[in-house]
């Protein structure tokens, strides 16, 4: 990094590694897939142009940037009609559409801060320390949010399995 700017090749590498997760994360925060994808592209283009500098922990920075951008997105479109929540932002080699939607639904029903923690840990590949940094919370808070989130997810997914 020169003057904190990430080399072009590193940005492309970061994109290949995190873009899908970041897009799904934006979707989990209420964005449609196309808008989420555009948002992530714009973020990486800014990185390439050196208009934003990620610092020492690029992944944490990226998720924080997407989090803020999705907040702005929702704020700007709060008066618009919400899109039907049927869009898939996950894939699974064996699960059908209904199961994927069920997992998405279970995630969407979590309190926002718990959903963020689960997302960053499982699909962002961030450690709890990095999550704490990305969301600007103490490490213990991040750990407890993650634990509560898993409990709720287990309950919701078990209820769904029982119904089937």
């Amino acid at each position: 990094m020169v003057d904190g700017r990430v080399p072009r090749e590193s940005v492309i590498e970061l994109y290949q590694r995190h873009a899908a997760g970041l897009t799904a994360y934006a979707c989990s925060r209420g964005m449609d897939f196309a808008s989420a994808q555009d948002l992530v592209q714009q973020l990486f283009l800014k990185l390439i142009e050196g208009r934003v500098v990620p610092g020492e922990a690029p992944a944490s920075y990226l998720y924080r940037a997407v989090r803020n951008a999705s907040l702005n997105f929702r704020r700007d479109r709060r008066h618009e009609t919400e899109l039907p929540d049927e869009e898939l932002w996950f894939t699974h080699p064996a699960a059908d559409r209904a199961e994927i939607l069920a997992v998405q639904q279970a995630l969407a029903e979590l309190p926002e801060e718990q959903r963020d923690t689960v997302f960053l840990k499982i699909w962002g590949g961030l450690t709890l320390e990095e999550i704490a940094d990305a969301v600007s919370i103490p490490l213990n808070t991040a750990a407890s949010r993650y634990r509560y989130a898993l409990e709720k997810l287990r309950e919701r997914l078990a209820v769904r399995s029982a119904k089937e």
Partner: protein
Amino acid sequence: MKDDEELERYLSEFRPRAVRPLVVPASRARAWVKPMAAAAVLLVCAGGAVWYSRMPRADRITPPPLVVDSDAKSDTDMLSWFALTRLALEDDRKFEMELEQESRAELPAFTGPDSGLHILARE
């Protein structure tokens, strides 16, 4: 799903949907090229305009103003006309002589060896 690890494993089997590759437009990759090109064009245009405005041009050379001593000439004319009119009224013969002298001075000579009339006569 009895424990957290099992749940984590289950959840991680769901992969985020693939996204399109990062598209870096050429103009974005070299964002400085356009402003630099625009600045260069402006500089060349400004330089050209300055050079053009300072360049001496044939069609711009204005001839020195024609100084016509109109007052003096008109005075002379006035005098000669006045004098001739007076002469014509007072002394008809002298007026005729004066006219003859004026015509010889003003009109082309036909009596000289190289006069137009002589040349025509020779031919």
